[in-house]
């Protein structure tokens, strides 16, 4: 049923590549490899242009201005069964400026990097801010931040994903699909690798000039099994996580040798019994729990959301109002600890400085089960400092590209592992009748983050402390505060795992943020399970 796979002719491709390189060299074209063609670092002339934008904005009446030159590169390669379906390289480069007039912001951006265009852009940002301030004036206080006149940061990595040849990536994807398609009833296998590089130069009217290069990589595999009579199909996806790392991360995942196992899980789902709805103990593997954390802890602790700034789209928050919840709202047992962490190794939201020049940091969000602090930017810190005692920004400002006005975005929000180093087997062993959920599935939560409904990829029925059989059609539902207070047992550092999304959406115009969440395996008692069939 798997058709006749077409094998990639590795040697032929390699010869082609060598011949092409020679031809290109002979033609004198500056194209040595598959590296991005763009300059890898910001030049001094680009820095001058950015400082010009800041100066023009200040001269035009902004009391504060900041700006960015950002180059974002994507490379996507995708395969379906034994064919390459997508090879796409994207390069986008431009400049922006954000100006504060009175208490109002104005923002403008352009991809035309001439002195005239940049000056016009800066004046337009000030004009928009001025118009807003006249029509609907407001107040803005920016938290103090140290000035970093010449700073650099790059995502820790050993292999830049853009230095790895397309040929190597294609061979890996075809190999993954080939392994998956060996399994009975597996009819389709899609795999892809998305690589991202952001080169960002930030300048502020306070004197900071910060250069950063952020790398992220997203491997994706989705395997489909179809029953022999065609009456049913099941999929296994979300098998591995994106990361803020280099290509060495992909090489360490052993994707090809694992593909057959994931395919077997997809095929097993065809035969698995449908879940009996009702109350079950629930063990969430970190590959599933990270997204529940993202939705039920990450989002409601965004301060702009809590205060109504996202009311027309992403929603508000049940963690509100600040004066009634900071150091007062219990969100889980005493052993529950969450931190905001922009320094976590491998995190998709890990950085050196944020989009306002605030250095990356770690801070507590939930301490001993109690909510203690929100995610903030420079203008937000002042809104809650009287309750937190913290006057600095937590450094959560980010704009997704040169066209995008920065605003508060989620840092890596991670749950710390338990002090007792319980293993996955220990946690399963602590469960008489439960369901272990692996991988993220369909997920949905209301706009104040109360009502959760999350599915997964693979569900194991646990009986008497052991995996008994696979189930299907499982989703867990609940109300966030009760759900987290039902947390009973957490695994130790050996079960800690970083899950991630490239697609955290917020804002109007919508912007996408990449973010990671670390967590240990966790056991929740008496959770409502529904059948989604």
């Amino acid at each position, binding site marked *: 049923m798997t058709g006749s796979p*077409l094998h990639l002719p590795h040697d032929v491709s390699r010869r082609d590549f060598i011949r*092409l390189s020679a031809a290109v060299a002979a033609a004198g074209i500056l*194209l040595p490899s*598959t590296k991005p*063609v763009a300059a890898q670092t910001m030049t001094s002339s680009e820095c001058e242009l950015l400082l010009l934008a800041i100066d023009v904005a200040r001269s035009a009446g902004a009391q504060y201005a900041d700006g960015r030159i950002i180059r974002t590169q994507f490379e996507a390669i995708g395969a379906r069964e034994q064919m*390459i*379906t997508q*090879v*796409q*390289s*994207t*390069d*986008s*480069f*431009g400049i*922006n400026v954000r100006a504060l007039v009175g208490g*109002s912001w*104005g923002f*403008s*951006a*352009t991809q035309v990097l001439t002195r005239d265009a940049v000056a016009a852009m800066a004046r*337009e940002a000030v*004009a*928009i801010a001025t118009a*807003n301030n006249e*029509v*609907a*004036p407001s107040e803005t206080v920016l938290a103090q931040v140290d000035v970093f006149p010449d700073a650099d940061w790059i995502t820790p990595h050993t292999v830049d994903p853009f230095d790895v040849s*397309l040929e190597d990536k*294609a061979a890996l994807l075809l190999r993954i699909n080939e392994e998956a398609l060996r399994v009975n009833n597996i009819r*389709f296998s899609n795999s892809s690798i998305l690589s991202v590089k952001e080169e960002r130069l930030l300048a502020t009217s306070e004197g900071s000039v910060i250069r950063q290069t952020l790398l992220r990589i997203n491997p994706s595999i989705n395997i*489909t099994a*179809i029953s022999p*009579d*065609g*009456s049913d*199909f099941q999929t296994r996806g979300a098998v591995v996580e994106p990361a803020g790392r280099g290509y060495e991360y992909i090489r360490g995942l052993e994707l090809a040798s694992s593909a057959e196992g994931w395919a077997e899980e997809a095929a097993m789902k065809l035969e698995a019994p449908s879940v009996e709805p009702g109350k079950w103990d629930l063990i969430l593997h970190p590959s599933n729990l990270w997204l529940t954390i993202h939705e039920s802890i990450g989002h409601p602790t965004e301060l702009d959301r809590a205060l*109504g*700034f*996202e*009311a*027309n*789209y992403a929603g*508000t928050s*049940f963690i509100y109002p600040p004066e009634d919840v900071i150091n007062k709202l219990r969100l889980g047992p005493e052993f529950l600890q969450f931190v905001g962490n922009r320094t976590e190794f491998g995190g998709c939201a890990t950085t050196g400085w944020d989009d306002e020049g605030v250095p990356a940091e770690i801070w507590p969000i939930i301490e001993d089960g109690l909510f203690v602090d929100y995610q903030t930017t420079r203008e937000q810190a002042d809104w809650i400092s009287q309750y937190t005692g913290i006057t600095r920004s937590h450094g959560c400002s980010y704009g997704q590209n040169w*066209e995008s006005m920065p605003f508060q975005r989620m840092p890596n929000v991670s749950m710390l592992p338990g002090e007792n180093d319980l293993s996955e087997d220990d946690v399963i062993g602590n469960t008489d009748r439960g369901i272990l959920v692996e991988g993220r599935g*369909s*997920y*949905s939560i*209301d*706009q*104040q983050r109360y*009502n959760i*409904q999350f599915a997964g990829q693979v569900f194991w029925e646990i009986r008497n402390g052991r995996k008994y059989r696979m189930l299907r059609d499982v989703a867990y*539902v609940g*109300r966030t505060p009760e759900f987290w207070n039902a947390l009973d047992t957490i695994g130790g550092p050996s079960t800690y795992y970083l899950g991630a999304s490239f697609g955290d959406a917020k804002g*109007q115009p*919508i912007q996408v943020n990449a973010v990671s969440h670390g967590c240990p395996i966790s056991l929740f008692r008496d959770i409502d399970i*529904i059948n*989604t069939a």
Partner: protein
Amino acid sequence: MAEEKGLSSDDLKALSDRIIQLSNADQCRVNINSSWRGYTRVATNRITSAGGADATSINITSVFGKRVASVSTNSFEDDALLVAVRRSETLARLAPESPEYVDELNLQSYQDNQAYYESTGELEAITRAEAAAIAIRQAESAGQIAASYMDVRAGTRSVATSNGVYGSHSSTGVAYTLTSRTRDGLQSGWAGDEANDWNNIEGQRIADDAIAKCRDWRKTDLDPGQYTVILEPTALGMLMLRMMNSFNQRTADEGRSYFSKTGGGNRIGEKLFDDRINIYSDPAYRDAETSPFNNSGQPINRQDWIRSGTVEDLARSRFWAGQLDQEPLPSPSNLIMAGGNDSLEEMIASTKRGVLLTRFWYIRGLNPRIISYTGLTRDGTFLIEDGKITRPVTNFRFNQSLVEMLQNIEMIGPSVRVAASENSSVSTPIVVPTLKVRGFNLSSVSDAI
């Protein structure tokens, strides 16, 4: 702010020609999208962000035999274009052959549908701010808090191939949405419009409706269950935007869709929905106009998908059509569900017990075999008893098959263009009616307001 938005159609043609001249590939395709976007966002009764940007992106696809790769750049200086063309050629030569690649199209003809409205293309930041201020003032005087978003776009896109295709199309779009909440956070109301033509955005009505829906009533509980519901057009549009993705023949033929026939093949020609369901797409539909071509340069024309409840056709790519020896059929670029004559008042008056739904949030797929989705009601959920709206009720999560929804129709109102995207950006134009449906599964209560 009233400068020309993006590059002109002539500029795009010149750029495309230049790129094709530079190409050494067997075949080459150039897609250019040049547009301006302006926006104004309000929250807590003040303008929190406003801005604009011109952006042009050029996507170059190079083909050698069946080896294909694309490179996208936003730089259109000669040197940068040459580098991008050569890079796409390098990548294409490195790429393994794509057995499903179908040759680039040659000369095509496209219908001429006017989708660019100067009223939208020339909208200035101050006009956006003034429109926002109307709602801010009105919310303030009602003791409420306004959060709104106005998204404005104007631009031109083009497609050109080395085999002779050229098409360009200019369009505008504007979406304006408003959420108004009580200061205690116990009630919320929403209204919004989306159009190609700014003159069809009814700012005053949006302010009136959102603020009226946010009446300072205390919400009361209502048990979850299966209810007769009246889906306002926005609520229905948000679901139909998802349903569009199911109109695909290949996934049906491959056994991965509701439209798959058990034992193989698909269900084109079968009557699967209520007789009154007629769904089609039409790039020339007034004030929901879209491009008359897709990215590969295929013409997009009016197409029935569901006629009188029967599946008329499903989209198939050029490759899939070739396998089946059929004509290709591009995916829809907008969606229109034909309306009926039932008014909202008649729907409410004829309802003994039901729920009126304004819009949804966080809609996610559950089971593609029955096209089921989950999501939550939001910003205006009201109980109807004995033919009258009696009180606002808590929000709900729904778990609902859209197939069943389109089988359980009670009444159909006139169709209107709606802001169907959850983030309220200008999106795929969706034109749908108010729909009264029985047996809609409101599966659990949401405490969110």
